[in-house]
C-alpha cells in the first residue's frame, strides 16, 4: 500500500523490523533507545512484550529480555506487573538529552564524518534520482510534508526531516534506497539530527527542504543532491562542534572538585 499507510509511520515500523548482525541485544537496545530519546516512542507508551519483541525483531527471547533490562537500567522503561502490566516508556527530556550527549561523546570524529558520508550518499543519490523521476503529484506530496512540518519543537522538526527524506527516497522509485534510508534513520537519526534542538537549525532544515523541492520541481538532479548533501554535512559539523563543547565542559566539571570553591576559602 502507498507511501504512508495505516500500519505505522515508517520511522516506527522499522524499529520493530528484523535485525541482522552481531551484538543483537546491543542493537535492540540501541534501536529502542534511539526511538525513545528521539521521541518516536512516547512517554507512557506500552512496548511489545518480551515474546512479541523477540518475534518482531527476529531475535531470541533472552536477547529481547536482555535489551529490555538494559533499557530499565537506563531509566527509559518501567515494568508494571499484573493484568494491565508490561513495559512502558518513561522518557523525560533531560534523560533523553543526557543519553544523546553520551552517545555523541562515545562517537569519534572519524565515525561522525563517516556517518555523514554514508547518509549523504544515500539521501543525495535519492534526491538526484527523485529529481528525474518526480511526477507533479510527487512534488505536491513533498510540498504537503513540508507544510505539515512542526518547526516549534525538536521532535516535530526531526519527524519532518525523516518523513521528507523517506518521501524523497520513495519518489526515486528505488526500494533499496528507501530501505536504506529507513534503516539509517532508525539507527542514526536521533544522533545525526541533534542540531534540531536549536531553532536556527530547525529553520535551516526547512530552507534545505524548500531548496530540494525546488530542484526536484525543476528536474535538476545536481542541485537536489547538492542541497541534500549540504544539509547532512551541516548537521554533522554541528555534532562535531557540540562534541567539543561537551568535552570541554566535562573537563571543567572533572577539575572542579579538586579546586576549592572561591567562596568557601573566604568563610574560614
Amino acid at each position, binding site marked *: 500500500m*502507498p*507511501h*504512508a*499507510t495505516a500500519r505505522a509511520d515508517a520511522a516506527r515500523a522499522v524499529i520493530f523490523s528484523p535485525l541482522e548482525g552481531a551484538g543483537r541485544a546491543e542493537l535492540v537496545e540501541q534501536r529502542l533507545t534511539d526511538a525513545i530519546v528521539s521521541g518516536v516512542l*512516547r512517554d507512557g507508551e506500552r512496548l511489545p512484550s518480551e515474546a512479541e519483541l523477540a518475534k518482531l525483531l527476529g531475535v531470541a527471547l533472552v536477547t529481547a529480555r536482555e535489551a529490555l533490562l538494559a533499557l530499565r537500567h537506563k531509566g527509559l522503561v518501567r515494568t508494571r506487573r499484573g493484568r494491565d502490566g508490561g513495559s512502558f516508556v518513561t522518557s523525560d527530556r533531560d534523560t533523553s538529552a543526557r543519553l544523546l550527549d553520551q552517545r555523541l561523546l562515545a562517537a569519534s570524529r572519524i565515525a561522525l564524518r563517516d556517518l555523514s558520508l554514508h547518509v549523504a550518499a544515500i539521501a543525495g543519490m535519492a534526491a538526484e534520482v527523485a529529481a528525474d523521476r518526480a511526477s507533479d503529484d510527487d512534488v505536491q506530496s513533498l510540498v504537503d510534508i513540508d507544510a505539515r512540518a512542526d518547526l516549534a519543537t525538536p521532535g516535530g522538526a526531526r519527524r519532518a526531516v525523516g518523513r521528507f527524506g523517506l518521501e524523497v527516497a520513495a519518489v526515486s522509485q528505488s526500494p533499496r534506497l528507501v530501505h536504506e534510508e529507513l534503516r539509517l534513520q532508525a539507527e542514526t537519526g536521533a544522533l545525526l539530527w541533534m542540531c534540531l534542538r536549536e531553532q536556527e537549525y530547525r529553520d535551516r532544515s526547512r530552507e534545505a527542504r524548500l531548496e530540494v523541492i525546488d530542484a526536484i520541481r525543476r528536474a535538476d538532479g545536481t542541485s537536489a543532491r547538492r542541497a541534500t548533501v549540504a544539509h547532512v554535512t551541516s548537521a554533522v559539523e554541528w555534532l562535531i562542534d557540540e562534541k567539543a563543547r561537551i568535552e570541554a565542559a566535562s573537563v571543567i566539571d572533572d577539575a572542579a572538585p579538586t579546586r576549592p570553591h572561591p567562596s568557601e576559602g573566604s568563610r574560614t
Partner: protein
Amino acid sequence: MTRVTTPAATIAERIAATIDPVFAVIEDWRREVAALLAADDEPRAGRIDPVIADLVGGELERPGTLITGAGFVAAPGFLADAPWHLAWWLSGASPFRTDVLGTGLRRLDAVSDPDAEAFRDYTTLEWWRVPERTRRRHLTGPYVDYLCTDDYTVTITSPIVLDGEMAGLVGADVYVAKLEQALLPELRAADRTCTVVNASGRIVASTDLHRATGALLRAEGLADALAPLREREADGDPRAGEAQATTLPGGAEVVACGDTSLALVLE
C-alpha cells in the same frame, strides 16, 4: 523475411487482458464482501476478518498469481468494534523479508488506534482517496511500498458502496517486477519500441531494456496525450479516456490499454 507486425490497438488489448484477471478477482471480492456487509445489521471486524482471510488467501497462495497482497479496508466508523480497520494479507515472499520467505501468509500489522502516534489516516492516501471520490476502481503506482509489500508495487483498489455510503474497499498489491514479466512477451509482438506507462507517464515495462521501470518517459506531447487518462482516473468518468490513438509530434503512437489507466507508447 518480414515480421508480421501486430497493430498497436491489439497489443494494447493484450496488455489490458493480462491485467484483467486481477481486476476480475477484485470484482468478485468486492461483490462478496458487499453482500456480506449488507447482510449484517452490525458488521464487526471479529466476524469479517476470517471471511476476508479465506477469500483472499486462496488467490495469494495460487501458483502463478500476479497478486502479492490483498484484503479489505473499512471506512472509518463502519465497523462496530473497530473504527479504523485494515484486514490485509501478504504472501510470504518479499526481497527484504527473507525471514518469512515461504512461510505462507502474513497479516499486515496495522495501527488502528487513532490516538497512537504511529496511526496514519488511510483515507488521505491515493489508494483510498481516489476510489472514494470516483466510486470506481483505481490503480495506484508503480510506487515503493515501504510499509506493506516492501517493494516496487502497483495497488488496485475498488470501493464498496452500500446505500450510497462508502463502506470500505477491497484491493490487491502486485509487484511491478511480476507485472513486467507478464507484459514483456505481449510487448515484443511489435517490431517497434513498446513502452507501457501509467497515467503520469511512469514506465511500467518497456522493450527498450535500457529504459528503467519507474523512470518517467519523456517525449514531446506525451503529457497531453495522457491527460484524458489522468482525467478519467480523477473524475471516474469511464468515457473520458475512450481508447483512441494519439500520435505525438515525434511520431510515437499512444494508445490507452482498455480501462486499466495504463497506456501503450509505440516508437
